[in-house]
């Protein structure tokens, strides 16, 4: 059989394969992003960056359960000035790097994006969907079509880079919000952020384990919901989708692409299968393609639709 093609495009960004490191997993330093690239990722995303430094919530911030992970990290990051220094030579990573940008008011997003002007990121991702950090995402009212339109438009004016808007699985009208982002000039939708929030209680201590008490649910438990979101979005919008949520095997990635994703985000999968999960997933995708006589990964995109 001829050589397999795993490369995909998200907007105008060419990826050597469809796996993308999701935001908030390992992306604190350039060195770790480089290591993820060396372990096979097609692209990498930084930890979300805000205008001012943030310490985040107290520990425990991340725990696991039978069907996934619960986290309330609280957007710890050194603030855009220091983060821009850390990621100054981001091209060293060797694959396209996506900068995750957060804020409370639309001016904050603009400030952070402007703070990245000296860097060489390939795209900007804007999560409007965190379920567990006061002042950000859902807790700042950013999960509405209007807020999405306003924030996306404001950022659109100050950057030429492709703009990805990251949405929550916990909002029923996800397609309406995605359309608002598309109308405001977004180049792709990342679907989805963590769901919930959820809670896990230690019954001996009789207290929630996370210090913030509640946190976003990711991993296996999220996958069928993320897949449905991607499926719905594929019918509703014309821009590409990065399918994120519970992907940890090649079969999961293929499923996500059949729902309509152009590429897949991977977060919790790093825990399940190690830092080389990207390489493993690509090998599994290749094997499946060989077994099913498919030579170009792009031909399966949206295959699950009527």
């Amino acid at each position: 059989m001829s050589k397999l093609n795993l490369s995909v495009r998200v907007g105008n960004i060419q990826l050597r394969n469809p796996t993308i490191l999701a935001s908030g997993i390992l992306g604190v330093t350039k060195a770790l992003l480089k290591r993820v690239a060396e372990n096979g990722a097609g692209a990498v995303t930084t930890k979300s960056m805000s205008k001012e430094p943030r310490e985040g919530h107290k520990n425990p911030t991340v725990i696991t359960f039978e069907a996934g992970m619960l986290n309330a990290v609280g957007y710890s990051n050194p603030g855009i000035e220091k983060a821009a220094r850390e990621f100054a030579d981001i091209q060293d990573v060797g694959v396209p790097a996506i900068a995750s940008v957060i804020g409370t008011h639309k001016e904050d997003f603009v400030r952070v994006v402007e703070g990245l002007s000296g860097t060489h990121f390939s795209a900007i991702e804007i999560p409007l969907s965190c379920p567990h950090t006061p002042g950000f995402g859902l807790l700042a009212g950013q999960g509405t079509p209007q807020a999405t339109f306003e924030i996306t438009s404001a950022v659109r004016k100050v950057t030429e880079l492709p703009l990805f808007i990251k949405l929550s699985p916990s909002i029923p009208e996800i397609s309406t919000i995605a359309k608002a982002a598309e109308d405001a000039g977004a180049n792709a939708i990342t679907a989805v952020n963590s769901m919930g929030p959820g809670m896990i209680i230690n019954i001996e201590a009789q207290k929630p384990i996370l210090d913030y008490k509640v946190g976003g649910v990711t991993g296996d438990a999220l996958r069928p919901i993320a897949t449905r979101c991607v499926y719905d979005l594929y019918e509703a919008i014309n821009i590409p989708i990065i399918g994120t949520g519970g992907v940890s095997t090649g079969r999961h990635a293929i499923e996500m692409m059949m729902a309509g994703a152009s590429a897949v985000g991977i977060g919790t999968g790093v825990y399940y299968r190690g830092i080389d999960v990207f390489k493993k997933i690509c090998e599994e995708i290749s094997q499946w393609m060989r077994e099913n006589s498919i030579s170009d990964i792009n031909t399966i995109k949206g295959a699950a639709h009527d």
Partner: protein
Amino acid sequence: MIEQPAMVKICDIREESPLVKTLFFESSMNFIPGQFIMVWIPMVDEKPFTVSSIQKNLLGISVLKKGTFTDLLHQKRIGDTIGIRGPYGNGFHLQPELHSCVVGGGIGIASLATVIDTLPKITIIQGTRTASEIIYRKRFTDMRFCTEDGSLGFRGTTVDLLEDIVKKQQFQKVYTCGPEKMMFKIVELCKKHHIACEVSLDRYIKCGFGICGQCDCSGQRTCVEGPVFTIPELNTMEDFGRVALLKTGERVDVNNHRQLSYISIDNAK
């Protein structure tokens, strides 16, 4: 494994020094010297500690009183509970056949205590600022002490003492834990004398299982690939001896930053 704390009851407490207590509890955790656990006080915080004592199902952690969390651990009484999860990280590669030396600076000796228990013939150096900070005096009877003020044993740093000892005694391996400045110098010394060396690094630990990236040291996760690193590994880690990340992820000088009072007592000048 599910990464959630399990509650254990404190069944014994030993005062090691005015600032260090060892808390004992029952657990069937399988622990390799050099690994660590996350200790949880509900509604307060969760922090990394090494297991400093293993006797069948009885584990102990030795806690230096430093800030809010460790102060609360010091206030615990027998019968109180704490949460633990782990073990995490890579431990020391123990080579009983080699002629070895352990070098502990400050509370760093806690991370080496189970190494000492496991290796039969070993030279032990414990360094502190002053005599009252020395711990485990009854537990390990043949320790070499050094204090900065000369109040016990050798006057000076552990690095000076080790340098002195290697002139007379040939070691094949050094295991060390303590302030990073000290470990950096010990690694330099070991390189000069062609001695193998493993260090246990201290970085801000958040998740403990390699997801958050907060404990990065030049692309290595202290909680997964570390906390123990060998000389060949350290040779590729530019940040060793130089940079650590604060809780925010900001890079700062590991030897000189007020928010990093990492493994306590800096007895390496």
